[in-house]
């Protein structure tokens, strides 16, 4: 079944067309690698899917509902989660609480119900497990301000997982990790796919993407170039043109 469908989305920033008439769909339990050079409009398309940006044209359909006009938080509660390229931890809270508040997403859905609910033990327990899972359990009690980027990137992933999404959007989760850490993280991401969860992975680390993603989508200059099984895409002239420049084509 189709989980996500983006139809003819366009986004403009002043004179720049960051996303140009892009259509993209994804089924349940799928794993799609989303690649393209810097400035290709990957993050911008991701923001259209989460609702941080409204597209100038086009529609977003998620789990059978048109969500184009929904605010971000409603889409999140409906089954989306996002690990952002530029990390945005809640600086006043420990890593555990950063994840626990996401784990309690059903408890904060309504302010009045939230007022009646107390006790954070279960969510903190789940948060600690997720921090262990992404390999930063040692920093569970630390504040984000004390930690290097590699930790904060993984915090983004743990927080997104705590939301138990149907579709997990990851924007460069391997950035800031060394080669060994990136490899572990890539395997971990691959293990998340299935059981009703799909993953859309933006990543510049082509080596890891090619290793773990069965399917790839390439975008350049805001336009969708090619999509298909990883090996076919990487052998295609469009892929080579996007990555090696015009002269190679």
């Amino acid at each position, binding site marked *: 079944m189709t989980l996500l469908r983006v139809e003819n989305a366009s986004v403009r920033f002043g004179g720049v067309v960051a996303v140009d008439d892009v259509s993209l769909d994804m089924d349940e339990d799928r794993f799609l690698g989303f690649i393209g050079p810097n400035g290709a409009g990957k993050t911008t398309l991701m923001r259209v899917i989460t609702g941080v940006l409204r597209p100038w044209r086009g529609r977003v359909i998620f789990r059978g509902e048109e969500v184009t006009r929904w*605010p971000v*938080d409603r889409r999140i509660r409906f089954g989306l989660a996002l690990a952002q390229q530029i990390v945005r931890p809640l600086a006043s*809270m420990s890593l555990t609480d950063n994840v*626990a508040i996401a784990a309690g997403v059903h408890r*904060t859905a309504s302010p*009045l119900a*939230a007022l009646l609910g107390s006790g*954070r033990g279960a969510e903190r327990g789940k948060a600690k497990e997720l921090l262990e899972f992404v390999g930063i359990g040692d920093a569970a009690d630390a504040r984000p301000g004390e930690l290097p980027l590699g930790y904060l990137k993984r915090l983004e992933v743990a927080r997104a997982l705590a*939301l138990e999404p149907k579709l997990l959007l990851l924007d460069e989760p391997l950035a800031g990790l060394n080669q060994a850490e990136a490899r572990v993280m890539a395997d971990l991401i691959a293990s998340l796919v299935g059981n009703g969860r799909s993953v859309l992975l933006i990543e510049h680390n082509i080596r890891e993407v090619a290793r773990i993603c069965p399917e790839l989508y390439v975008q350049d200059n805001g336009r969708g170039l090619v999509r298909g099984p990883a090996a076919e895409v990487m052998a295609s002239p469009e892929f080579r043109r996007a990555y090696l420049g015009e002269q190679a084509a």
Partner: protein
Amino acid sequence: MAYEIAVLTTMSIAILFALSLNVITGFCGQVSLGHAAFYGIGAYTAALLTKAGTPLALALLPAAALAGAAGFVVGMASLRVRHDFLAITTMGVTFLFVGIVRKQEALGGEVGISGIPSVAFGRPGLLALALVCTILFVLLAVRIRRSWMGFAYESVADDEDTARVLGIDVPRYKLWAFVIGTAGAGVAGGLYAHHIRFIWPDSFGFVESVTVLAMVIVGGIGSIWGVVLAAGVLSVLPLWLQFVDDYKLLVYGALIFLTMRLAPDGIAGLARRLAARLTR
């Protein structure tokens, strides 16, 4: 005895007023420079009702409801503005309130309302009522803080874009903070009107808004006991020091400035750091 009762009533009302702002500015992170307007709405509502024969304990309910309704409207208007712009927008609310009330014959215009009746059981009765309201509000604040609502407010105060990405309905949470906070201010205003027994537009102007903000900031933005302490002390300062009464705006403005420069987390933050140093 009468003097002590009057002082305690002043403190209790100030604590309630400051804690109500603390919900908006402390818990939810939305700076408001117009909180006195809601205090004023509560004061005028309660005064008119008791003059018409309603007991104060009952009149406080519509005072809270009207102030909360006005808070809802201001909250709606403030959803799109942040930080400095929010401060300026809410500052406008104070001037709007004073400007409108001055021109209303029915509200006493420039002259205000005098002859506000005394409460059942006189001054001790008013103190008892004020203490009950303040204690109830303290309990509500503690409950919010401990609940998932408070947890959500922490995330909104920290970074509202991130809160949204974590599934928090930020506008709805902000509106609740405005409604709870302004309704609390309405109750405080109703009590104040029956404490002083005379109100006029300037009782609820910019100076009062700055005064209550100073209490929250000096106490430590978001800290319940810090704000209780600061409001208790700062509210009686003008009674004891004529100088403070004469130069209110200057003194409270300077207190805000000094706290923000030297200890942005106020008395509560200082105490926390001191405790950390002693236990180390």
